[in-house]
């Protein structure tokens, strides 16, 4: 081996050594880009599993589901989950344009989550003042977690699916510290509810 070749080997070893010794400081100064940032929203049945969801509902009975939120946004995040209720003709959120449903929220959850953490909250609901006349079903009141709301929603008989169908849905909103406001996070989950059993 020539002396010049040995010089190159020593220079390479020197460079590697310098990088090893500099790495603790470089780790504090350089920040590599993290992974993909996203949030999760889900709804589970009464046993915290994706089964036994309430579907055929009747007035005066309490139903339970769990709403879950997961944070993978790279930092702690402040979410609001709005609970809304609609009949078949009222609009859902528009996922293409990222616009929330125009319906007013009935109930809300405020959830603060650290990065890579999740939370599940119970959502109990019951109906009252339900009637059915001439192929038309009307729900007067919906109580969510014990708080009553006058909803006054009506649906016509769905002959294809045989039922009076309403939808309970949850929208995920996220707080933006820069604008000091909430914006729709383009995520929602829903459950169809058949009011046939109560009429």
């Amino acid at each position, binding site marked *: 081996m020539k*002396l010049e070749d*040995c*010089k190159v080997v*020593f220079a390479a*070893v*020197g460079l590697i*050594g*310098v990088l090893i*010794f*500099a*790495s*603790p*400081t470089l*780790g*504090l100064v350089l920040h590599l880009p993290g992974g993909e940032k996203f949030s999760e929203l889900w709804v589970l049945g009464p046993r915290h599993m994706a089964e036994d969801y309430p579907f055929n509902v009747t007035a005066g009975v309490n139903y339970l589901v769990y709403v879950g939120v997961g944070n993978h946004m790279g*930092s*702690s995040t*402040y979410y609001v989950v709005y609970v809304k209720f609609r009949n078949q003709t009222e609009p859902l959120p528009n996922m293409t344009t990222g616009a929330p449903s125009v319906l007013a929220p009935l*109930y*809300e*959850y*405020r*959830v*603060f*989550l*650290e990065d890579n953490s999740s*939370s599940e909250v119970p959502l109990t609901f019951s109906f009252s003042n339900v009637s059915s006349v001439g192929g038309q079903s009307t729900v007067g009141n919906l109580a969510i977690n014990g*708080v*009553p709301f006058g909803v006054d929603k009506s649906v016509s008989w769905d002959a294809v699916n045989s039922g009076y169908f309403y939808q309970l849905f949850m929208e995920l909103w996220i*707080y933006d*510290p820069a604008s*000091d406001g909430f914006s729709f996070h383009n995520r929602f989950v829903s459950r169809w509810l058949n009011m046939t059993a109560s009429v």
Partner: protein
Amino acid sequence: MSVLLRRRPEGFAWLLLVLMVAGLLSFGPLCVRGTGDASASVGEADVAVRQAFNATLDAERAGANVSGLILRLNEAGEILTEAEMALGTGNSSEAASKAVQCIGIAESVKGDAVVLKASALDEAQTVFWMSLTFSVVGIAVFVVVLMLVWRWFKGGYVRKMLGMKPEVAHDET
């Protein structure tokens, strides 16, 4: 009053009516003010929770462990929701009471977040200077040692080359 009732019963009825109307007029604004105050308190609680979250986020960015603050923020958020629900159902006194409770927690979180941030920044500065010292001293020592090794190696190499005896090789061609 009893004399008036006996002599002028219709006059007493008018007086009673005027008193009732006056009472309603004075009570109405009180009710409106009560609802308005509760609404303002809930608004203040909402702002306080946002500020507490922003302070927590700042502390987190400074490197602090904010798990405890997040737990308390969730508690404040739950109470804020209860306040808003109470306001929606017309229960102003409960809404105002919950809002005050929420503001208390949010301000406590905000204060703790500021302290945590300062402490985390101090710690981060100490860690940075320790790392920088380690890197600078480590690199200097490593380079000096490497140069000494190089000189020793080079000397040995040259000595080895000078100590070699020339040999005559036959050219086969």
